[in-house]
């Protein structure tokens, strides 16, 4: 819509009608500093700080700085577009608190904020459709970008999923906004369209993929046979608490268990943040309580209680009606009366297509620069979840809607700048054979898939095995042997996929062949995730390897405590020296990932230890502060990054 406003004509392509995109599932809200939090000491800078601290400093800081500065303006814009944000009695927008912050920074529309934001944007796009600036191609599968001899992107090849016709779309700029890749994990909280195939096809064409190993596992999801449904963090934001019975698998109904026999492990361990610690920490703690402490509510599967029963029904209906209805619909139990059973599930990909930015001297983004959001392939941009830039090692709740709207709004003037000075002419000046050769290549590939004899393998069964392999090896807790085993298994599955028999070989709405293509493309991203995780021998954000964990300070003697804290900080510095780097993956000619590492711009906020709930955090923090002060005394420019 921003492109259309700048009078740039857009062909909009999507697997599903855009109104049915995965953002409808985002429940909780969207973060920004606001008038109220400002008076409590909040600022854009603190939102920026929370975001990079929550992300374990793995993000380049200028884009995050810019995003948090834009956040209040974005909420205002969405408000103007008619999003029914919840209101205070006086008619202002209401806010709630989300994980990883101490401020009520999250604006929300019931418990379907993502749906409401998406609909407002969809409505604006429809408005531009009615004026002819936007042409929608819904139900089309993006097969790959068209690159010219100089490696510049000149358009795309796509397939209409009904008559299975493959067509080329010449374009001067291509923006990929294709979301996450949760389907690689089989069942996740993501929608069925989130198969990562568009990103994967870009990577195969030469786009770099960054920080693939950083996959967020959401602490609270509802188990299901077809998918794992999210129970929004807002349930905890509104006062929901997580607990398990102190007696393992206590057979009593949860409400019959007296308070003294309930273990509120998050509040106990993290008194400041309580139930609202960042997601990676909540997830690991739940995992630990269930697996290592054996306190799972049920014996045969991992789950803990998420309890809302102490809150007023009226408040719950008004603020959380939508998500509670989901639990009720899918579990057949009313969470207002009975504590919910929840467990962790793959939820978000922090990693994604590598995209660039142009930094100003002050550490912000240069407005209208075509470098912003552009990948290493000129003319090809990435925005939204499929772009890696904003969340580092871990995303904070209610920051994803912000990053996706921000990157979309911010990229448009840069695209306009680029269109004004196209190198090598526009798409219309290109030789028709460029498009035809790319189209023919995809057509041949498609025909070959339909015609090949098939070796009896079933793509749906292989997908299940891929999901299990990835879920076991590359989620909450990772270890190198398991990752290596998973890597070998992936190669076996990839090979078997080439022997898949298609149960439908026709050319009309053939979902079978579309699924098989998407499955083949999942292996590239799976390899990138596993290789990245295997190589990264440290703990950072969502990437946790117990072997490289840094336990806190447990000595009682003050001198010994100090010594331990010094040693801890030394180790932390060494770890950052080695691993505070973006993982960059490209594919070689065999389709195997090649990893390299890129320094992270931490020039605005010096990295510091993430100490949520760490034993001895106070003394480590003290030692760390002293070191930072010494450093800044030695370097008066203040650049300690």
């Amino acid at each position, binding site marked *: 819509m921003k492109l259309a*406003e700048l009078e740039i004509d857009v062909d909009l392509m999507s697997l*599903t*009608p855009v*109104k*049915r*995109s995965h953002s*409808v*599932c985002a429940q909780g809200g969207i973060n920004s500093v606001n008038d109220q939090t400002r008076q409590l000491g909040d600022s854009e800078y603190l939102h920026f700080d929370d975001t990079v601290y929550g992300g374990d400093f793995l993000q380049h800081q200028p884009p995050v700085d810019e995003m948090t500065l834009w956040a209040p*303006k974005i909420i*205002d*814009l969405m*408000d*103007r*577009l*008619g999003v*029914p*944000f*919840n*209101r*205070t*009695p006086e*008619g*202002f927008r209401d806010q709630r608190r989300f994980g990883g912050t101490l401020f009520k920074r999250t604006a929300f*529309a*019931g418990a*379907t904020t993502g*749906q*409401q934001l998406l*609909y*407002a944007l969809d*409505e*604006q796009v*429809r*408005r531009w*459709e009615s004026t002819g600036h936007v042409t929608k191609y*819904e139900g089309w599968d993006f097969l790959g970008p068209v690159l010219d001899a100089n490696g510049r992107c000149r358009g795309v090849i796509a397939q209409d999923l009904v008559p299975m016709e493959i067509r080329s779309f010449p374009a001067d700029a291509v923006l990929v906004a294709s979301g996450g890749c949760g389907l690689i994990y089989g069942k996740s909280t993501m*929608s*069925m*369209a989130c198969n990562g195939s568009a990103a994967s096809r870009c990577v195969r064409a030469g786009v770099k993929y960054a920080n693939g190993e950083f996959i967020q596992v959401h602490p609270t999801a509802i*188990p*299901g*046979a*077809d*998918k794992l*449904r*999210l129970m929004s963090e807002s349930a905890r934001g509104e006062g929901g608490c997580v607990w398990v019975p102190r007696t393992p698998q206590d057979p009593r109904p949860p409400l019959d268990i007296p308070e003294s026999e309930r273990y509120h492990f998050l509040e106990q361990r993290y008194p400041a943040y309580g139930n609202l610690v960042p997601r990676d920490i909540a997830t690991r703690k739940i995992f630990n309580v269930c697996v290592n402490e054996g306190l799972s509510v049920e014996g045969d599967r991992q789950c803990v209680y998420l309890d809302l029963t102490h809150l007023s029904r009226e408040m719950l209906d*008004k603020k959380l009606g939508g998500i509670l209805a*989901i639990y009720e*619909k*899918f579990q*057949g139990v009313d969470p207002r009366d009975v504590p919910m059973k929840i467990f962790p599930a793959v939820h978000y990909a922090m990693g994604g297509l590598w995209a660039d930015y142009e930094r100003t001297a002050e550490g912000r983004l240069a407005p209208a620069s075509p470098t912003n959001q552009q990948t290493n392939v000129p003319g090809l941009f990435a925005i939204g979840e499929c772009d890696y830039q904003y969340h580092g090692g871990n995303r904070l709740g209610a920051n994803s809607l912000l990053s996706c709207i921000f990157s979309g709004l911010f990229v448009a003037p840069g695209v306009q700048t680029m269109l004004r000075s196209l190198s090598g002419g526009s798409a219309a000046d290109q030789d028709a054979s460029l498009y035809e050769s790319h189209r023919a290549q995809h057509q041949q590939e498609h025909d070959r898939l339909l015609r090949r004899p098939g070796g009896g393998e*079933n793509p*749906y*069964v292989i997908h299940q095995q891929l999901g299990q392999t990835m879920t076991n090896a590359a989620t909450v807790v990772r270890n190198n042997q398991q990752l290596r085993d998973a890597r070998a298994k992936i190669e076996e599955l990839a090979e078997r996929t080439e022997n898949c028999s298609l*149960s*439908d070989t026709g050319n*009309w*709405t053939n*979902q*079978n062949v579309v699924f098989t293509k998407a499955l083949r493309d999942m292996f590239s991203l799976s390899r990138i995730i596993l290789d990245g995780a295997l190589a990264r021998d440290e703990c950072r954000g969502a990437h946790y390897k117990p072997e490289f964990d840094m336990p806190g300070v447990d000595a009682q003697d003050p001198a010994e405590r100090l010594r331990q804290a010094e040693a801890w900080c030394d180790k932390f510095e060494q770890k950052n020296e080695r691993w505070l780097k973006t993982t960059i993956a490209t594919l070689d000619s065999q389709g195997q990932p090649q990893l390299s590492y890129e320094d992270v711009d931490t020039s605005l906020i010096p990295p510091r230890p993430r100490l949520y709930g760490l034993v001895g955090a106070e003394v480590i923090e003290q030692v760390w502060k002293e070191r930072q002060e010494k450093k800044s005394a030695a370097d008066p420019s203040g650049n300690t990054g």
Partner: protein
Amino acid sequence: MSSNGNAQHGCDSFEVRVLRQDAPGQPSYWCRYGVAYEPDMNVISVLQKIASESTTTDGQHTAPVAWDCNCLEEVCGDCTMLVNGRTRQACTALVDRLLKDNPEEIELRPMSKFPVVRDLLVERSRMFAALGRVKAWIPVDGYYELGPGPRQSQAQQQQAYPLTECMTCGCCLEACPQYTRIELERRDGESDADFSTQRNAAHDRGFVGAAAISQAMLFNDHPTGQMNAGERLDALTAEGGLQICGNAQNCVAVCPKEIPLTTSIARAGRATTLHAIKQWFDR
């Protein structure tokens, strides 16, 4: 767990009957599939199993059943179909409950008010076009920074919110006696562009339906949207508009989001009448 589930309906597997159609204009036919019972199943997981096995109860190998789905949380509206004759989302159709009502089998049919593309997959672009007809958007000046939106009371928000939950699924239209299927045949040699022009024109003449009427009211209630209320009311009084509604009230009964569609329709009725009178006086 599975023994628990078995106890509920007394067998290890159940049968699913699917009304299939290979392509538009082709005859429809029934296929019967046996599905192994598992706990926590919904119709989506049943269809996933059928896709993965693709073998009917009499051992015939068939092409997998085609269907639409995306979010599986009943917020995207994609997987709407007729489950045991009732229009609803397949994702919230829980197998345990369906088998409790009818232990014999589960019956799946495509929606009848939209052209079938294949099997359970139907073409619902008419619904999105209807949103365009009633200009279901806020015509803001632009996307630059112009401060917050208008202040609104909690009561206004609470009135708007249920209407904004409409996911354009089509249940209300499937249940509506006045909403009839528009299915055009492509003329010989007609190009894609010509065919879609022909189709859009037919959609524009057809009944706009409850969902779009309700959206028109949503935007007419909004302090900014109100400024263009007249345009939306004009659309509602044009051919295929509000006057087609026969007040059967089926729409509100089947809406999965319990949107007060009949209230919207009644309010639209009053608003269009007032609008017409005002226009008459303004002549």
